[in-house]
């Protein structure tokens, strides 16, 4: 919410809608028409956000379309800004380093770009890399554009070229390997002039036989000077990643051998994910939502599907008649003191799913409240921590005492809170605004406030 307007993305073509911050009335709607490029896009859908930026008095909305264009809109009117790129559009598919032998462009983006100090920075999201059709793919370069003109200012190569720093970590070279994009939200520090990139794994989430070495700068956090694109530092959290534990994931426990493959905990989508965490600058506490779910790691050779020697097999996650193999909680929120690293508190997120609660094998047992293995979006205020349950959860918004974790309210919602909530103050009134998805119905934007 900025200057009385709430901006949201909506619909499969990722329309942008401006709403009155007090009444919810639609102020304008922008709908891109990308034709065939939309049909071919690897990351369709309503997206996970947009970017508002005050460009020297010109309030601007930046969005990345499903077809991978960067578009600048006038935030007050919803009209494309003529002086930016070509009539408001910059074609992000140009200038990419394509994978040899690939004529399709497996790249898009469902998150928004980041705008800071006159620079708009774009990430790159590929198709999920569990079963890549080829070890060759387009590289996920990160680029900075002039916020006013759309001119390309710099490119940071997450997979370096021969002779550049990091190339030595590709023992067999990095000519054909792709991915290593940034699909999750970036953040920036204006005092240091840095943008922080959470870089994903290189091509092949499960099999790295074609890319021996540590594979810099995949599965790393990289800090760039956002004016020049020069790398200041990096930290690789997983060398030679074949776990798909790219940077938004956090927790780790030892994998355990299973019968059909290797049980993977947390799974690639377990632990924490794109919903991120909330940080309290006044107390130094970090609030992290996470889920515990296993998946089976297995490799299969399927020449009909892929030219890569091994890709992820289709094994089902084993369970005991629907009961997960791991003990609950399946979903939780942890408050961590960032000064000491201590866990200040940890609470279960979500009530026990009906299928567990009413399970015949568990009758007579007290297993406590299990929570759900869903992705919970958090928002933090002066005293409260609000948490939705995410896809697969119940249609409720929980309010916790942020000091103790105690639940102080269970707010019934018209649908599951699938997005991450925001809160703002407008006209002297505090609002909580979020997207909810009632089962089988169109998503809605819901605002809560005191009567």
């Amino acid at each position, binding site marked *: 919410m900025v200057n009385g307007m709430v901006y949201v993305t909506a619909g499969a073509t990722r329309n942008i809608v401006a709403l009155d911050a007090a009444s919810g009335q639609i102020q304008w709607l922008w709908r891109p028409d990308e034709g065939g490029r939309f049909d071919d896009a690897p990351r369709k859908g309503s997206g996970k956000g947009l970017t508002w930026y005050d460009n020297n008095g010109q309030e601007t909305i930046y969005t990345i379309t499903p077809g991978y264009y960067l578009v600048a809109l006038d935030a007050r009117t919803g009209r494309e800004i003529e002086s930016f790129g070509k009539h408001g559009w910059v074609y992000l598919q140009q200038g990419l380093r394509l994978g040899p032998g690939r004529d399709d462009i497996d790249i898009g983006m469902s998150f928004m770009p980041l705008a800071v100090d006159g620079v708009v920075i774009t990430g790159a999201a590929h198709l999920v890399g569990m079963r890549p059709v080829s070890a060759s793919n387009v590289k996920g370069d990160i680029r900075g554009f002039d916020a006013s003109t759309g001119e390309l200012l710099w490119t940071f190569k997450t997979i370096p070229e021969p002779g550049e720093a990091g190339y030595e970590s590709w023992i067999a070279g990095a000519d054909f390997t792709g991915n290593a994009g940034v699909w999750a939200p970036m953040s920036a*520090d204006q005092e240091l002039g840095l943008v922080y990139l959470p870089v994903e794994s290189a091509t092949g989430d499960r099999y790295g036989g074609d890319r021996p070495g540590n594979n810099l700068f995949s599965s790393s956090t990289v800090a760039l000077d956002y004016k020049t694109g020069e790398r200041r530092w990096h930290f690789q959290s997983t060398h030679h990643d074949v776990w798909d534990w790219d940077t938004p994931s956090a927790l780790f426990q030892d994998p355990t051998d299973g019968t059909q493959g290797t049980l993977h905990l947390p799974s690639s989508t377990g632990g924490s994910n794109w919903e991120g965490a909330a940080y309290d600058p006044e107390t130094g506490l970090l609030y992290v939502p996470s889920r515990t779910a296993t998946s089976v790691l297995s490799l299969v050779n399927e020449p009909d599907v892929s030219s890569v020697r091994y890709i992820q097999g289709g094994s089902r996650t084993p369970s005991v008649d629907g009961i997960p193999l791991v003990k609950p909680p399946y979903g939780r929120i942890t408050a961590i003191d960032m000064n000491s690293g201590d866990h200040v508190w940890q609470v279960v997120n979500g009530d026990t799913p009906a299928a567990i609660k009413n399970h015949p094998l568990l009758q007579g047992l007290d297993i406590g409240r299990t929570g759900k293995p869903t992705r919970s979006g958090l928002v933090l*205020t002066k005293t409260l921590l609000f948490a939705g349950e995410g896809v697969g959860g119940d249609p409720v918004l929980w309010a916790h005492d942020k000091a103790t974790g105690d*639940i102080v309210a269970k707010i019934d919602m018209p649908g599951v809170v699938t997005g*991450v909530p925001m809160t703002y103050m407008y*006209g002297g009134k505090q609002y909580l605004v979020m997207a909810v998805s009632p089962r089988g119905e169109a998503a809605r934007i819901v605002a*809560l406030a*005191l009567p």
Partner: protein
Amino acid sequence: MKASIVVLFAVLVGLSSTPILAQDVSVARGQAVFEEECSRCHVPVEMQARLNARWLGRPGAELYELIRTTMPAETPGSLSNAQYMDLAAFLMRNAAVPVPDVLGAEALAATIITPAAASEEVADEFQWTAFNGSNASTRYAPLDQITADNQNPPVSPRR
């Protein structure tokens, strides 16, 4: 009574310098009239949008005159002039124009339609400028209007 108000407004619109006796106009009465007479076709949020789109900078007298001569659509002018004035006051308040609960007709007619929100201090406002709150991505807002104490219905804290 009715005639005297017509005269009063004729005088106002005619920019006469003659002092006029205060006539009480009420926002609350205007709301009741709106709900009774207008709400079958209009909702407050729509009227707010209309005022913001087309009426900024214009005086209350013009708004009164338009409503009086065109509404209700089936029978324009069928309400009392006092009711039309109350309506104008309610619609202006509804669009965040700083109109007191009760004011004189002269004051209402002279009030320029300018939403107060734009000129209010920043303390009344906290913006959420990016997906994660800001580029620092903390998802934190220092707001405390909604607290554990003002929920409805109240519940006991639990785990």
